[in-house]
């Protein structure tokens, strides 16, 4: 497209259509998810669930507060969000939609956590797993990203199975859900992102 002024006059209708298609596909193929957020939340939730599970035998009082780590993890998440936003050279409609889904999910999780802890809600794990599945499945479908679709479906299955489990064993379902919904898709996203980055260098 360097000698654009010469080519402008000779652009046929077929070439126009081809150009539109190629530009749209170029913009769509731009990979922008670094996978860091998915890895962060996949690790934090798995860690908290496994520590809660292990604490049934360890009985360390301090470990009862391990879930406060999820509040602390908001800080690196905000830093990651700001840094990724600065590095990104465009804003997409898709990005806005995904951002909206995650914000709605975060608010729902925090409200449910408050309700569950205040009114000692039984089977809270099943509800958490259902909540995990919603953004994971929706984004997986939207992006045609199979690992997230599988992760979302896995969370629904685990939500049903967890109704048959009692504390602390339900924590194992929660750990499995966060691995399948976020950690594993996050690893795959990270790999794809690094590969794409290497290609651009």
């Amino acid at each position: 497209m360097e000698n654009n002024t010469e080519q402008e006059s000779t652009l046929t209708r077929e070439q126009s259509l081809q150009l539109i298609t190629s530009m749209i596909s170029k913009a769509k193929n731009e990979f922008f998810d670094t996978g860091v957020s998915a890895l962060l939340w996949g690790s934090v939730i798995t860690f908290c669930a496994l520590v809660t599970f292990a604490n049934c035998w360890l009985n360390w009082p301090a470990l009862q507060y391990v879930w406060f780590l999820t509040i602390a993890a908001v800080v690196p998440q905000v830093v990651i969000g700001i840094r990724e936003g600065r590095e990104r050279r465009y804003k997409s409609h898709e990005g806005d939609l995904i951002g909206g889904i995650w914000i709605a999910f975060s608010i729902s999780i925090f409200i449910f956590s408050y309700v569950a802890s205040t009114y000692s809600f039984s089977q809270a794990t099943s509800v958490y797993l259902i909540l995990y599945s919603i953004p994971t499945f929706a984004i997986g479908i939207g992006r045609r990203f199979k690992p997230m679709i599988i992760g979302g479906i896995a969370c629904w299955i685990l939500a049903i199975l967890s109704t048959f489990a009692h504390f602390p064993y339900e924590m194992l379902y929660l750990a499995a859900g966060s691995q399948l919904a976020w950690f594993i898709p996050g690893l795959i996203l990270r790999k794809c992102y690094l590969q794409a980055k290497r290609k651009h260098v």
Partner: protein
Amino acid sequence: MFKDLNPILHSQLRLAVVSLLITVREAEFTYLREKTNATAGNLSVQINKLKEAGYIDVIKSFKDNYPQTICKITPQGVQAFEEYVKDLQAYLNIKK
């Protein structure tokens, strides 16, 4: 018989820029340059023409002490692009 194609959009670089901006909501100048493989000078001229036609908004600011140009498609630009594609489709369908 055929409606004339919009001359503002019927140019390789301008059409490429508008096609990109239709897909992404807004983009930096460097992103558009990379995707279109155009020279900075040529791209700048074509962006100005699109801006004058009211098809895109150009926002100039600073990012990390460097000048930054952000291009954003306007509702008028979206409408013009949709009409352009419709005209193209009408022509290609009749030709088939």
